[in-house]
């Protein structure tokens, strides 16, 4: 395992995770974590839609107050 710069994680080498072997499965990572984006976008999208539903169909329905 070539010497790798690791100070950002811990100052003693044996405290740092081992390097990763490059394998074909990594090819798909070339242009960024597609799967993670899909999960993140869909979950945040759900949150936003849920919030809008709550706001317009639960909150505003319960009468004006100020």
């Amino acid at each position: 395992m070539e010497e790798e710069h690791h100070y950002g994680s811990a100052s003693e080498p044996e405290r740092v995770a081992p390097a990763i072997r490059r394998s074909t499965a990594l090819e798909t990572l070339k242009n960024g974590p597609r799967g993670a984006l899909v999960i993140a976008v869909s979950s945040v999208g759900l949150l936003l839609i849920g919030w809008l539903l709550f706001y317009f169909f639960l909150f505003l329905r319960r009468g004006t107050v100020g």
Partner: protein
Amino acid sequence: MAEQLNNQIASGLIQEEIIERTERRWLYAMAIVLGLMLAVIVFTGVGQMMSPLSDVETINPATLHLKGEFVESNLGTAVEPDGSITVRFLAEQYTFVPPCAVVPASTLVRFRLTSPDVTHGFFVSTTNVNAMVVPGYITNVMARFNRPGDYVMPCDEYCGFGHHAMAARVRVVPQGQFKNLQPEQRITCGAQ
């Protein structure tokens, strides 16, 4: 030497530019989502009267019964000279006075409460009328009830050993049935 080697291995995984680009794009996307929610709040806040209460008034809690707006004869529903409706409650340890208030439906009603002892909660359940009643301050909430009926009004802030039994009722009657009152007349709906 370490840096040169490191880039050669690490960069194989994902270039730093791609990481920075996705993170930056994600940041912008999230900012937009949050901005959208804020915009909805502002538009409905300006369009209708949908915002938290905003009225800082103080009153001496120890002498409420001696002088001021919350003497016992002034509690309950009142019609103000300008025709608006004001309902005054006292939230005290372990009962609301009056225990039941009558309010006309779909008219703007002003609730005014204070407490002589500890902090209480004023919540007409299943509606947005929900505020704290803090001793020394007057809670002033404007509200409009569209659906006539009896609403339970529990104290929703811990106020001592009797907190669980502290509840009043708000009876929303259709506009027609709400008889007009003389300026100095106060009504409550009393025991059912």
